[in-house]
């Protein structure tokens, strides 16, 4: 008898404990779900607000906001195609310069660097991300632009005879698409290198040992076993850097020359969508002007989404080819 009642008691207690933990789980689950839903809700709220404000301009001007090249506030024309072009080209230049450098830094730090050097170099590279963009802009005006104008641009155009191609032709005043690309490269670099370094260090030891056991040299091991393993992570890092480049405002505004014109030459001044908004927003009183700037913001939002979509697809397809 006693043993039976003890059994019952035991079962009750067990159920009680189970129920209590179930309540805890529920609360915890609701809390985390709230956190997880809050951020996407915020993004959607921002998008809705921007698109609502942009609606009058889209209704009146249609897609000419992103296809026309005539931006003339006094005349009521709002065509931001040069800014769309500038945003894409300056970010592309930034990635072309930053990616090899950043991956080089990451491979050195994870594979070759002596232990005493790894910490300080990694720290200094990461520190690049902490510099305010207005400081990059000032540095650009007073150091980078004179250097580009007096040394780099004449070298590219005249010494290497690249001036014969449309990409490096024309007068070199300094503020240019090239200057913006270089600034953006420096700003995107720490993001790419930090992520790449982490994923390279996370490659399992067995992967390296297997390559070495097959007779690979150190370089072959990195090229054929380590980097391919980390490839999708590295691409993720590059996309993070690209996101930084697409949205950067202040530093670019200070060095790009703010000229709403599409030019093939990288030595010519250009414009970006973020700079356009930053330049004109505070003094925009006319309703259509304000709405057109919001429409440029909405377009930047869409472009960023598309670029992110492409990045996801790249990561996914890379992962799939590796699985085969």
């Amino acid at each position, binding site marked *: 008898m006693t043993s039976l009642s003890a059994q019952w008691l035991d079962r009750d207690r067990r159920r009680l404990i189970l129920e209590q933990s179930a309540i805890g789980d529920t609360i915890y689950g609701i809390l985390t779900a709230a956190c997880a839903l809050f951020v996407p809700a915020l993004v959607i709220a921002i998008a809705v607000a921007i698109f609502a404000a942009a609606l009058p301009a889209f209704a009146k001007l249609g897609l000419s906001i992103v296809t026309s090249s005539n931006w003339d506030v006094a005349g009521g024309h709002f065509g931001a195609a040069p800014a769309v072009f500038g945003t894409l080209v300056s970010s592309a230049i930034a990635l072309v310069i930053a990616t090899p450098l950043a991956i080089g830094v990451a491979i050195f730090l994870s594979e070759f660097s002596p232990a005493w050097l790894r910490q300080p170099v990694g720290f200094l590279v990461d520190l690049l991300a902490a510099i305010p963009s207005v400081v990059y802009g000032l540095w650009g005006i007073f150091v980078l632009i*004179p250097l580009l104008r007096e040394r780099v641009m004449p070298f590219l155009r005249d010494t290497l005879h690249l001036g014969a191609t449309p990409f490096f032709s024309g007068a070199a005043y300094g503020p240019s698409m090239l200057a913006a690309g270089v600034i953006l490269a420096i700003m995107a670099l720490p993001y790419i290198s930090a992520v790449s370094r982490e994923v390279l260090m996370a490659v399992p030891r067995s992967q390296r040992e297997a390559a070495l056991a097959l007779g690979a040299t150190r370089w072959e091991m990195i090229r054929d076993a380590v980097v391919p393993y980390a490839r999708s992570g590295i691409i993720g890092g590059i996309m993070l850097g690209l996101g930084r480049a697409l949205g950067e405002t202040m530093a670019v505004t200070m060095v790009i020359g*703010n000229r709403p014109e599409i030019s093939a030459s990288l030595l010519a001044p250009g414009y970006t969508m973020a700079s356009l908004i930053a*330049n004109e927003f505070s*003094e925009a*009183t006319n309703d259509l002007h304000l709405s057109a700037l919001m429409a440029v913001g909405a377009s930047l939002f869409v472009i960023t989404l598309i670029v992110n979509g492409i990045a996801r697809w790249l990561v996914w397809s890379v992962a799939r080819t590796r699985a085969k």
Partner: protein
Amino acid sequence: MRALKLAALMLLAVACAKENASNSTTASSTATSSGGVDLTGAGATFPYPIYSKWFSDYAAQTGVKINYQSIGSGGGIRQLSEETVDFGASDSPMSDAEMAKAKGGPVLHIPTVLGADVVTYNVPGVTAPLKVTPDVIAAIFTGTIKKWNDTRIASLNTGASLPSSDILVVHRSDGSGTTYIFTDYLSTAVPSWKASIGKGKEVKWPVGIGAKGNEGVAGQVKQTPGAIGYVELAYAKQNNLPIAAVRNQAGQFVVASVAGVTAAAAGVARSLPENTDYRISIVNAPGADSYPISSFTWLLVYQHQKDAIKGKKLVDFLNWALTDGEKSAPSLDYAPLPTDMAAKVKARVATVDFSGAK
């Protein structure tokens, strides 16, 4: 029971507020408020240095605290229209359409001080101030004159050794009152400019590069041999930039100065009609001493003030600014209003009513 308590509390609060109001209207001349901000304003960045000096001087003298946010003329007009600030400030007058949209009724433009744009340049070898005419400025900024040794520049500057290098035009990339004054001047003085480019806080520039802010334009001009740009007088003076002499309507070449700007205002003020609303442009003003690229900057206030206490404080401040405030303007390189004009503007301020307010 609870509702009753609430109602009693609210009654008490209303009674207190009323008492406060009657106190401060009876003893307003000596009233000093304790803590908090009495008036808020927002708008133009160009007069911010002189306004902030005024607000701190005024607070020291009377205890009335004024909070001003220099968010740009556009933002100032928008906030005044929405009645989120007690006064606005702008470097360009509000348009009729903007005035019609203001929720608080008729808006008065109160000119406070004057500013000017100067043409600054970086031409190696030129030491005396470069002389320019409105036509030459327009030709440079539209790209018709491309080289520094162009005969149209050289004929004005005999004896100067002008290089054969290209001219780089630097203009503002952000919307600004500085650009408004500059393009207003060129539209007034050069008919072809009015037809092709027009005036505005931002215009479609045919040539050159854009830089953000006065410091951006000045920095770019300083850095680039062969560059030319326009910045505010106060900024140019404080940074010792080279300043071009501009030929005025009377045919004199004038280097911008506080006196030259006040002279321009006096030249225009003489011919003002009695019932002017002061939304006036003084570019290309008559008079031998007048500097032609100058403009008023305005405080914007509602004629019918809804809050009697704030309305009174605002009017008191405006009267102070137009007398005591004007005296400190030249110390910060702003030109004061001509004295007879300041008196007329005060008569305009007197039309602000706050007695009939609820």
